[in-house]
């Protein structure tokens, strides 16, 4: 088990009022899984991702990453985990505008203490992997949205993390670039990368092998739906029963319909 969140609660303080955002979230992810977490805006998806990504700490509950409880980790240890175990992909890319694609991708390796020569080498390899070998010296302003997101994905995987964490990775892209990004995620997952993707788009979520729903801070679809080839399993809290659609098509034609 690569990731084990048990009974996670997260409250925010706003104007001296406690705002509960995550309510008893339990999520277990095996190595090599491809999980989508769906939910409407404001349901707590980003909050959950921040906790998974060690950017934030839960108010209560336990979080084990690679079997290590993160409760006692200090700031520096959390930084190190983010650097080595997590690869972040953001909705708005978050590339440094003045730096080339290569330098952007190499950045996490700087914090891992890798030498400059090796940093640039590995950055170029990662860019090759996302199909941007011919754009290494481009700056973000010279790239399309889809290309920018692929640079960001290259940056996320350059450290060979355990988990690729994506928060609405296609949210700012047109559908064609979005599809490219999804293909890339599929490919990385096939190569063994654990992918956790957050989205509010059912079509995008359908690329994952397991889909979870979060609604108003409550995660559901947790229990025992096995992933089998060519089948996506969806569970929703409403009605209590798992509702899913079978399909047997290729990934491109996949249609996903969630039922309310």
């Amino acid at each position, binding site marked *: 088990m690569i990731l084990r969140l048990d009974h996670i609660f997260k409250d925010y303080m706003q104007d001296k009022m406690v705002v509960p955002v995550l309510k008893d979230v339990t999520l277990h992810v095996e190595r090599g899984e491809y999980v989508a977490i769906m939910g409407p805006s404001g349901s707590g998806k980003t909050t959950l991702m921040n906790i998974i990504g060690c*950017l934030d700490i839960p108010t209560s509950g336990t979080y084990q990453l690679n079997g290590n409880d993160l409760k006692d980790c200090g700031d520096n240890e959390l930084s190190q985990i983010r*650097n080595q175990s997590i690869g972040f992909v953001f909705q708005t890319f978050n590339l440094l505008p003045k730096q080339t694609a290569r330098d952007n991708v190499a950045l996490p390796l700087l914090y891992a203490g890798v030498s400059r020569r090796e940093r640039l080498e590995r950055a170029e390899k990662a860019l090759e992997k996302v199909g941007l070998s011919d754009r290494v010296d481009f700056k973000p302003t010279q790239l399309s949205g889809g290309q920018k997101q692929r640079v960001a994905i290259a940056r996320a995987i350059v450290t060979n993390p355990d988990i690729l964490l994506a928060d609405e990775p296609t949210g700012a892209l047109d559908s064609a670039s979005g599809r490219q990004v999804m293909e890339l995620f599929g490919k990385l997952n096939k190569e063994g990368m654990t992918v956790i993707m957050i989205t509010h788009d059912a079509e995008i979520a359908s690329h994952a092998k397991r889909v979870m729903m979060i609604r108003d801070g409550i995660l559901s679809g947790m229990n025992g739906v096995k992933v089998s080839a060519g089948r996506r399993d969806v569970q929703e809290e409403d009605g209590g029963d798992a509702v899913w659609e079978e399909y047997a098509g290729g990934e491109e034609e996949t249609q996903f319909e969630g039922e309310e």
Partner: protein
Amino acid sequence: MLENIRLAFQGVWDHKLRSILTMLGIIIGIGSIIAIVSTIKGTNEQIKENLVGSGNNAVNIQLYQGEWTLDLSYQSPPDGVPLISSEVLEEIRDLDEVAEASLYYTRNEYDAVSNGVQTLTGGTILGVDANYFDVYGYQVTKGRGFVEKDFADYRKVVLLDKIAASNLFSGTDPIGKTIEIKGEPFTVIGLISKKATAQPVINSMEDYYRYMSNSSSGVVCVPDTVWPIIYRFDEPQNLVVQAVSTDAMTDAGEKSAAVLNAYLTVSDDTIRYKGEDLLEQANQLQELSNATNQQLIWIASISLLVGGIGVMNIMLVSVTERTREIGLKKALGAKKSKILVQFLTEAAVLTLMGGILGIIVGIILAYVISGISSAPVAISGPAIAVAVAFSTLIGVVFGMVPSVKAANMNPIDALRHE
């Protein structure tokens, strides 16, 4: 670290105008300090050079009674002051601080020297030994100097300095001509001048002030062996020693005086030999000019302080502007210390560049000041090193608050920042 420096330079380059404006306070502060220090140093070196002589390090040892020198023009030498023998002179030469020593007679005379047509209204007559010119840094510019035979054969030959020559001969060649000193005929064999020709001949405070008031009287030199021909009796000599270095001048003077004092058998114990401590006098003059300029440096420091606050201000703005970048870097695994060092480096690079530009501005300014006020410029290496170090330090100190702010930023809030 290298990466940080690279990024910092890139940051400065990416915001050229803002960087220059931020640096302005530092540039002005460092620039004015460098300009002031260079001018002070130039003035001080000029004072020292004028007073101490152009690197010849000559120290006069004179006989004092209390605070005043005994002037043998007006009184006869007191009992118990022996003539300085060649053995005593050797003893002085053997001192570590003393390179060379020379004995001479001197008189300031009025109307004593003439060539039959012109008379020197004032001037100094020197009776010198063979070493004197070396010790004092005179050189023969025309004709010849004294040779051994001049001393041995009591030849009545004389050397003139430029002023004496022009006063007596007004432009015509004096060599081979005859002049009279106190009625005795002497043949002019050469002209002498101080070695560093640009520098005046200054051997005492009186000379210094005389030089400063732009008047000077001539110097007339004869071999010391003929002194009794002019003055009829053996006078006590004056001693001049050449110190091994400028810094050794004070010691050379004191130790030489001590050697001479050991032979004194005077009843009045306020009569002592003393080294004329020109170095000390130069230092006093320098301190005077330092004190005034110290205040200028304080004023310039205030502009450095203002510059530092400017840097802090801009860095704070920059940290806020780059909140998302900081959040991202933290998400990618940058530790607090990395962010801290990144921003500190940026501040330090900014102020260091300001410092370097300030040094350039300061040097230019120093030359402009010297052009206006004719004070010389001496660029001080240590001052430049201190300016570089200090401007970097300003960056670190005033960059601390913004950098800590950046380092302590919460990554989630930073990433949410619009």
